[in-house]
């Protein structure tokens, strides 16, 4: 096996050195009865050439991967500068472990420190951790953290949070006696409804909203923060499209207590849903309640600056069952990719790309709204996603759009909401050319008529 340095000859000699006659004897401590006799029935060994051919073939069967696409809903197609993938592929980053030995891990540690800083700057918060698995688990952990901070058990979550995020939160909190109450979405605005907010009371640990929400509508976060704080609840803001940070008022500036987000938009491929990177930020006063890893500044005897993993007493390897979370391995390399993306785009680029997304979506929305029998049900301001109401079943419409026009037109909301057969969610980014958008509009028109 070409990945194993020691040749069979060398291994035979080493066996002798350790006093064994055969490789089988290495496993003497495993009861004979538990050792498998015959070979595993996994696929036979193949060469690089064959393997690449096989995977290319599989990939070719993902017919959607090569079409213009308007799918968003939690995973966004943005352009990633070439240097991002190049730099994360440096062996020194990519084949290193979690930086347990700071003297030979400063590269990773400094990068995480920069990541934490950038996330604070974008979210407008005081402190951010080294990453969570993704946005959905970050949200679930935020709810658990709110319970730790407030010692309250009731959590109001907007129904316009990504449905899969809600499912994950349900799974995480089910054994904590936390009840998640849904606040309905206003059918006219597409924002969290007034009735929903009336659920807020002195037992409420947190109000959870997503903005831009799942339907692409931008919530008035400041107003929501006031409502939550009025009853002593925390405001948790979830963001699935992190590019929006370059355009919308930061949750921190609006009074959010915890901000969680999906960082995939920062130069990470959609890659069928993962690996992504969860962003988690909060206020200084809650720093010691944070889940996950934190990197901090430190100095050596000669006063040289370096960085270390810190506040580890929150973590499982020390606190065990009393830890703030069970997370250990997180999404280091993806956080690094996001860091490189953010720094490459920089202060101007992060704003320009966000504005382009908003402009493309505005253009697309305007064009689709003009189509006969198509409408945009929601009135709230939007960033780069919006719901379209079609004259026919959206699932059918979109699959024909794919087959006949080779365009992935968006997400049929019936995937999550059985009662919304004709609605679909359209997302536009800087990667969607005007030509693509016009083709989408023409396609919708021709198929629906």
């Amino acid at each position, binding site marked *: 096996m070409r990945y194993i340095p020691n040749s069979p000859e060398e291994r035979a000699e080493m066996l002798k050195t350790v006093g064994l006659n055969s490789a089988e004897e290495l496993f003497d401590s495993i009861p004979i009865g538990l050792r498998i006799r015959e070979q595993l029935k996994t696929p036979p060994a193949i060469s690089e050439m064959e393997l690449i051919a096989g995977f290319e073939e599989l990939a070719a069967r993902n017919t959607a991967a090569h079409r213009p696409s308007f799918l968003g809903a939690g*995973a966004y*197609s943005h352009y990633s500068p070439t240097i991002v993938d190049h730099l994360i592929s440096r062996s020194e980053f990519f084949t290193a472990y979690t930086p347990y030995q700071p003297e030979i891990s400063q590269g990773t540690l400094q990068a995480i420190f*920069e990541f934490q800083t950038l996330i604070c700057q974008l979210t407008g918060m005081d402190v951010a951790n080294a990453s969570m698995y993704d946005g959905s688990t970050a949200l679930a952990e935020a709810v658990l953290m709110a319970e730790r901070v407030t010692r309250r058990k009731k959590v109001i979550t907007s129904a316009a949070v990504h449905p899969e995020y809600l499912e994950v939160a349900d799974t995480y909190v089910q054994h904590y006696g936390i009840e998640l109450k849904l606040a309905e979405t206003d059918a006219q605005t597409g924002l969290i409804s007034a009735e929903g907010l009336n659920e807020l009371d002195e037992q409420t640990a947190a109000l959870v909203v997503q903005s831009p929400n799942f339907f692409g509508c931008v919530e008035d976060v400041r107003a929501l923060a006031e409502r939550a704080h009025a009853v002593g609840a925390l405001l948790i803001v979830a963001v699935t499209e992190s590019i929006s940070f370059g355009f919308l008022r930061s949750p921190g500036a609006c009074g959010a207590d915890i901000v969680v987000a999906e960082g995939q938009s920062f130069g990470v491929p959609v890659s069928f849903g993962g690996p992504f990177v969860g962003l988690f930020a909060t206020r200084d006063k809650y720093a010691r309640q944070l889940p996950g890893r934190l990197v901090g500044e430190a100095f050596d005897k000669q006063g040289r600056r370096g960085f270390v993993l810190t506040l580890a007493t929150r973590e499982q390897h020390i606190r065990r069952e009393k830890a703030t979370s069970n997370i250990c391995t997180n999404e280091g390399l993806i956080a690094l990719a996001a860091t490189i993306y953010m720094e490459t785009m920089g202060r101007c680029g992060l704003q320009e790309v966000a504005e382009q997304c908003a402009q493309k979506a505005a253009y697309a929305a305007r064009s689709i709204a003009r189509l006969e029998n198509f409408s945009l049900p929601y009135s709230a301001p939007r960033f780069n996603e919006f719901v379209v109401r079609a004259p026919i079943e959206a699932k059918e419409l979109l699959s024909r759009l794919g087959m006949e026009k080779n365009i992935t037109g968006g997400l049929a909301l019936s995937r999550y909401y059985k009662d919304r057969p004709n609605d679909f969610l359209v997302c536009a980014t800087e990667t969607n050319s005007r030509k693509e958008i016009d083709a989408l509009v023409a396609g919708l028109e021709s198929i629906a008529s």
Partner: protein
Amino acid sequence: MNSTNITKATSHITQNESLIFERSQTGRKGYRLPPLDVEETPLDEIVPASLRRDDDLEGVPEVSEVDVVRHFTRISTWNYSIDLGMYPLGSCTMKYNSRLNEKVARIAGFANLHPLTPEEDAQGALQLIYELQESLSEITGLSGISLQPAAGAHGEMTGVMIIRAFIDARDGAGASANRRTMLIPDSAHGTNPASANLSGFTVKTIRSTADGFTDLDHLRELCAHGDVAGLMLTNPNTLGLFEKNIKEICQIVHDAGGLVYMDGANMNALVGVARPGDMGVDVIHLNLHKTFSTPHGGGGPGCGPCCCTKELEPFLPVPRVVKDGDKFRLDSSRPQSIGRVKAFFGNFGMMVRALAYIQTHGPDGLREATEAAVLNARYVAQGLVSDYDKPFEAQPMHEVVFTDKRQSRKGVHTLDIAKRLIDYGFHPMTIYFPLIVQGAMLIEPTESVGRAELDQFIEAMRSIAREALEDPETVLNAPHSTRIGRLDEAAAARRPVLRWKPKEAASAA
């Protein structure tokens, strides 16, 4: 410090580099976007000013592409990595990460595939997931596989929740309410109790015997109260020893009405040799980022598949990837499922790599890797036993634990030995874990190291043992060869500085 015994490393010049924020210069740009090709809409018509960002991203760096490339290239050189040499972190299985796997994971048909693509347009990805499930099922001897968990701890949480759901279904809500105890050996990894807690279990700790195994008597005793939902066991355990009584252990737990969860982080000792499913284990997680060589990336991403018996399958997370004839689809209508543990389908990119690993090795190669990994650990064990205290008699599997007992007499402790190892050109082993072994040094060479380097490692450790006697100061002040010395972690935790701030702001704070 220039010990003549240091054969693996030498100091050389490396570049300094400040924080990117300190490099930033107004007006620098590292990007270029195509010109906007649609009519502009007035921003106020898109989103009112009151909801728009108004700080012009104050503080976010402004740098050129060249700045970014030099910044990260420079700081990268401050890291040790697998590609630079042996990385014997016990329990972490730092094996070779093939570039072939990176290449296939980047094939556009995978990388550009959106997770919400309709099933019929994503058949290749679904088939890949299905084939990986099949291989992992064959390797573990467990038929139910979910690739959704993003890491080991996530897989633990999933598995433990499955146990809970199963018991609830079996005993009914009422009765099961009295089964909320999860037994965990004192040698277990911290994620185990944390995951159990996350699933609402009370953790009871099982003692290990003096010779490093689960204490069966204590287990029986703890199982006697009728409140045991399950046991979380690592096998080989975190001392690198195979729990030879595993079958009996499972029997005891099963007889007590509990289920057995196996932490599969140490599967690198078993692949192709023995299967948890055959041992009586009910549910297990794997770390694809360990055993199956997906790169650790300085702290993830990982992938922690949860594998369980047929009996537990109904409780696996949704959606599941299933095969209908020659089509693959997502199955979400599974009423007994514990629910979803992550958006979409888990870390797909890691699955691509893991399947490439399995196909590259083949059945023989998988077993060969296991043999080589165990042999390397044995070789190191034998090489060090003369100079270091080996607390357990039993022969280790893929990793071996030593202690600083002999060296500490001279005031040299595990931490010092680890730091001194850096001067010898090695990444230190895992230290102070497992917690039950005072001054533990857990060494896992993996199969990816050749004999010459193993010999260098053994020689380095022996040399350090000599230094501990003859010249303890050198060891106590190590490392001597690195850009920075030991950092004051206590101070860092006392007044944590967790982000960069502009000078003024910083001093203001």
